[in-house]
């Protein structure tokens, strides 16, 4: 079951939140949905779930609109930023209410509590839960219907490193079972090790999509030399001056740089291949930093 946005557009009055967005998330993979805060990720996810009506375009799950699915909560599970719990309900009560709404019974509520580690605090009122516990409870709620598709909006928000690591493994396992997982984040590092594909948006528009490896872009070589200025003068490729004796040279391999330096009798004290971090590629794409 794939998740698809086609020409998805949403305007809140004169403000366009999402503009002509088209992308797809396919089964068995984790698709990272990236963009800075306010890029339109939450609005897009809410349109996919029928909570927000698109101005134009369509968002479908397995070819259907969410509300038209025969068993919506058994098809799609969602963790949305800003969804809450009644503070007086216990964690288990919350799960039971929605288990009943979906028609899944008591046993299922206990089962998802076990799967997500909610069992450890099942009888505590939700007002006493930590952010990490709340995220687990949100995930448990999303899993009640054992859905094929998971839409997760910033599920890592407020998680401690241990929680993030747990979530990562948990989601990878779910994807390995053939589920379609779309997970949004404004922090790239959070999903760098989880996502196979990425969809990057900025100001509501698609700016990149594809396998995560393609996002890394060009490699570079970092060089330290007492004659850095001379070396730089001889090169025709783009270079950056990182320090008085340090350069970043783009579009050349380490071998090419070493040969170019040797040919001109320039001493190199250090030569390191640099794979640009995904964080940097992301920032370049989203215009957050140059």
């Amino acid at each position, binding site marked *: 079951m794939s998740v698809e946005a086609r020409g998805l557009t949403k305007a809140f009055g004169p403000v366009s939140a999402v503009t002509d967005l088209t992308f797809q998330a396919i089964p068995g993979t984790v698709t990272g949905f990236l963009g800075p805060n306010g890029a339109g990720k939450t*609005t897009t996810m809410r349109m996919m779930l029928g909570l927000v009506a698109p101005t134009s375009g369509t968002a479908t799950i397995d070819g259907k609109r969410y509300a038209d699915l025969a068993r*919506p909560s058994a098809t799609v599970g969602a963790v949305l930023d*800003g969804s809450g*719990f009644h503070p007086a309900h216990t964690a288990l009560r919350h799960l039971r209410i929605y288990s009943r*709404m979906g028609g899944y019974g008591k046993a299922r509520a206990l089962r998802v509590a076990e799967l997500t580690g909610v069992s450890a605090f099942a009888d505590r009122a939700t007002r006493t839960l930590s952010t990490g516990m709340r995220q687990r409870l949100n995930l448990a709620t999303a899993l009640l219907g054992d859905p094929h598709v998971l839409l997760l909006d910033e599920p890592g928000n407020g998680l401690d490193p241990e929680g993030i690591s747990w979530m990562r493994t948990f989601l990878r396992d779910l994807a390995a079972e053939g589920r379609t997982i779309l997970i949004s984040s404004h922090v790239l590092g959070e999903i760098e090790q989880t996502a196979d594909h990425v969809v990057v948006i900025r100001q509501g528009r698609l700016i990149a999509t594809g396998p995560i490896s393609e996002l890394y872009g060009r490699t570079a070589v970092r060089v330290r030399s007492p004659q850095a200025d001379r070396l730089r003068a001889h090169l025709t490729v783009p270079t950056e001056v990182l320090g008085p004796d340090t350069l970043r040279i783009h579009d050349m391999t380490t071998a090419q740089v070493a040969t170019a330096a040797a040919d001109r009798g320039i001493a190199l004290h250090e030569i390191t291949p640099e794979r640009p971090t995904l964080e940097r590629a992301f920032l370049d794409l989203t215009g957050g930093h140059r």
Partner: protein
Amino acid sequence: MIALIAAEWSRLTGTRLWLWGLLAALGSGAFTGLLALIGPENFTPPMPGLDTAEGVHVMLGLLGFTMFIPALLGTAAVTTEHRHRTITTTALFAPRRWTWLVAKLLTYTGSGLAYGLIACTVAAGALFSASALKGVALGLPTSTVLALLARIALAMAVYTLLGAAVGAILRNQAAALVTVGAYLYMIETVLMLIPGVKAVYPYLPGGATAALTGFTYLADAIAGQTGTSATTLLSAPLGAAVLLAYALIATAIAVAAPLRRDIT
């Protein structure tokens, strides 16, 4: 629909709200009993005693006066989903929004009826005990008293529905509670002071309720104070019909309004 109502019931019983409702129902019934024991003739200003028809009407009218409590409980119960932002999850589990709204309104109308039955049973017990203790016969036949109490119980269910429906329309808990509370407590009474508007009072929820429960004291008192003639209320069945119409209109708006709203 049964699953949705069961879920709603579970939502209600998972908080203390039902306990407050139960206490309020018992309390308002008992309060009526206490006042009956003191006797309307000992009120300041004195009112007709329990052995007169007016005296019994006053007692029942005072019980009817507590009808804003189940209305507010209904408002609180429905708006809690918006206040605690569980509305998103609810809309995901039942994307056809009218289904859970209808489930909510049915659940709370049922709870309102239970509230009314408890309050009126306690009040009936207290009223008859008070008359026995004081050795006076009630000014109305027992069957009439019971029939009036049953009408009050029904009206309480309708008020709960009205409160819940207003909550579903307004969504903001504080705003909805203030609106419902202010309307029932103040606005209707103030409207009666305006000579022209007074003519429509029989058709307002309060006027229709007064017709249904036979409590005209408030209308009469204001008429007396302002020196105008008292408003003629509708007949009891017409009052019931008007009240029901309000409930149905409010329900229709409550169910229809959120269908196209974005849940953000």
